[in-house]
């Protein structure tokens, strides 16, 4: 029981949760505004991780700076994908109706291309680097610097995004597009601009998550897929397209995973996560936090 109530467990749950929330945030933004099912989302995490690795290995640039570079790189990719693939599709109503199903196939293709390009360019060899791994102890809780940084940056981006959506005019427009796409256009929201900036933002957030992940995990061209799965689990638990609920669901998943394992056994991890996922789909398919956030 002492272990369960320890700050150490809470810290672990918050680090996992913040990372899940961050990875899912980008996916949710893109799905909410553009109705695109981005199966390649985890591969953007991989691009962010490689950006951090090469920046520190070749130019001794610390990951804290690489966050900006990775975000810019992934945002650029988002721009290219939107302008090159989806803008025209989304503009035509008859094509836009099928965009959700088509995007799944298109992004699957993009995922395969990104993985293989990374394998060609960097080889499949595992990569890793050392950064901020000094252990800080506060109130009996031991924290490595890189995990503390992960928690700080992921939480700041998640809650910063929620505040932005709540209080900034562009955020209102974005939420309007998520909730009533046609009505948002009628009241003057520039749909094209919102969509473009959201896909760039969603991709950038995944790149940032990749930089954070790279500080503690091995980097390979095929590391992204588990993050895609986690992101989908989180946004379905929270409610598809519901940004605030997705962030809450990410933290919730971190708590369920960490405390669930402590109460049962590590072998139950998948049962806990997917049990929650299936339970939500059966009982509240619209997402557990949807109503609470909207009210």
């Amino acid at each position, binding site marked *: 029981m002492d*272990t369960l109530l*320890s700050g*150490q*467990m809470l*810290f*672990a749950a918050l*680090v*996992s949760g913040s990372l899940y929330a961050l990875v899912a945030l980008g996916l949710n933004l893109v799905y909410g505004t553009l109705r695109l099912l981005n199966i390649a989302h985890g591969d953007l995490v991989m691009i962010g991780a490689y950006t951090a690795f090469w920046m520190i290995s070749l130019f001794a640039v610390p990951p804290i700076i690489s966050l900006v570079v990775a975000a810019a790189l992934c945002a650029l990719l988002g721009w290219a994908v939107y302008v090159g693939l989806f803008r025209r599709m989304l503009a035509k109503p008859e094509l836009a109706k099928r965009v959700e199903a088509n995007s799944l196939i298109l992004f699957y293709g993009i995922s395969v291309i990104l*993985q*293989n390009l990374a*394998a060609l360019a960097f*080889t*499949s*060899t*595992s*990569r*890793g*680097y*050392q950064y901020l*791994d000094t*252990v800080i102890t506060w109130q009996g809780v*031991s*924290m*490595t610097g*890189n*995990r503390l940084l992960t928690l700080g940056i992921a939480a700041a981006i998640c809650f910063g995004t929620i505040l932005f959506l709540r209080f900034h005019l562009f955020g209102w427009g974005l939420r309007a597009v998520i909730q009533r796409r046609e009505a948002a256009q009628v009241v003057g929201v520039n749909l094209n601009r919102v969509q473009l900036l959201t896909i760039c933002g969603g991709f950038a957030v995944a790149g940032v998550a990749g930089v954070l992940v790279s500080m*503690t*995990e*091995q*980097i*390979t*061209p*095929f590391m992204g897929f*588990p993050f895609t799965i986690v992101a989908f689990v989180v946004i379905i638990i929270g409610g598809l397209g519901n940004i605030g609920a997705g962030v809450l669901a990410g933290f919730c998943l971190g708590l369920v*995973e*960490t405390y669930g*394992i*402590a109460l049962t*056994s*590590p*072998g139950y*991890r*998948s049962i806990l996560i997917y049990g929650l996922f299936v339970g939500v789909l059966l009982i509240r398919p619209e997402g557990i936090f949807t109503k609470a956030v909207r009210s």
Partner: protein
Amino acid sequence: MKGPTRLVNAALGAVMATMTAGAAFAQDPITIGYSIARTGIYAAAAPSQENPYKLWQKQVNAEGGLELPDGERRPVEFVSYDDQSNPANTVRIYEKLITQDDVDLLAAPWGTPMHLALAPVLQRYKMPMVGNTAASVQLRNVAPGYIWFPTSAIPDAMGAELAKMMQAEGVETAALLANELPYSQEFRSFLIPALEEVGIEVTVDESYPPDVKDMTSMLVEVREAAPDAVVAMTYPADSFLFAGQARELGIEAPFVMSLIGPTIDAYRKANGAGANGIVSSAHWSSEADAWPKGQAFFDAYVAEFGEEPDALDSALAYMSMEILQQAVAEAGLDPEVLRGAIAEGTFDTINGEVRFDGVQNVVTPTGFVQIQDGKIELVWPEAVKTADFAPKQGW
């Protein structure tokens, strides 16, 4: 002048034609086929095997080619395909290599499942292949004949040897954390009775899924149990996680083992001095004076790829090619004669002498390595060790 000029031209032409034909004959390459996991779940592990293949090919070709029994040397060409980490693809690819690509020799794919799937194919087509990156007690059930396994990292022998090593280092209590993947679980199933036999008490015994993202609860349990040894039966991905979080929680056991992962170059780069003192599974070290070819391989690998070879998979992959090379020099390319040469021969490799009895290498002893000052030192068994075991001093 016209006559003699014509004559000279004709003579020159004839000489040139003979030389070209001769050159074409001499340059006729020996093809070696293999499949490898360039994509899919094993892709990150495969370069540690394919890089030694490429290095070996480069070295052999630089010497004029692969030597045949008559002293002739022919360049080596690889024919390789991506098996997408799928054993069913491995089977199809090797059938294609043998029947359609008509390769002269075969090299091994990556991983135990691929080797096991391939054994009946080799038997059917009567094509010999020296395996490498496979380790399981199931390998002993493979019918001997056309496949051989140079590894000595077989879980039952490893369990017994690790228990002996831990006993020798004064370990009385141990915490076991095991990935749920087959190799870790197989090792765990042999380690537990071996520990009991030497009187080492298991105070923590947890298994975790391969996609584990946080080990805090397990490691808090380990920290509270304060065992003399922590044996983490990791795969590469979770070996990074284990090291990072054991460091965070200040696990103080003097004996810390991480099964697969620490011998990868990236692991030491990611963990720096924190990796020092970690024991891992491998039976080769470039530091061994008894195996002088080992250091040359290590240096050539670093020069070629800019990183250190994996002490387990890279060493095994290179050994398998050395065995093939020596067997071809003895027996040539006829599969049946070559099979006999591999089955009965004794080979000089970077890991010392290798000889097979059935499918298994019966010379190389089962060993364990430890990272000391960033280097991979062989610390067990006594007979071949390159350094003494040093208790882990913090992270």
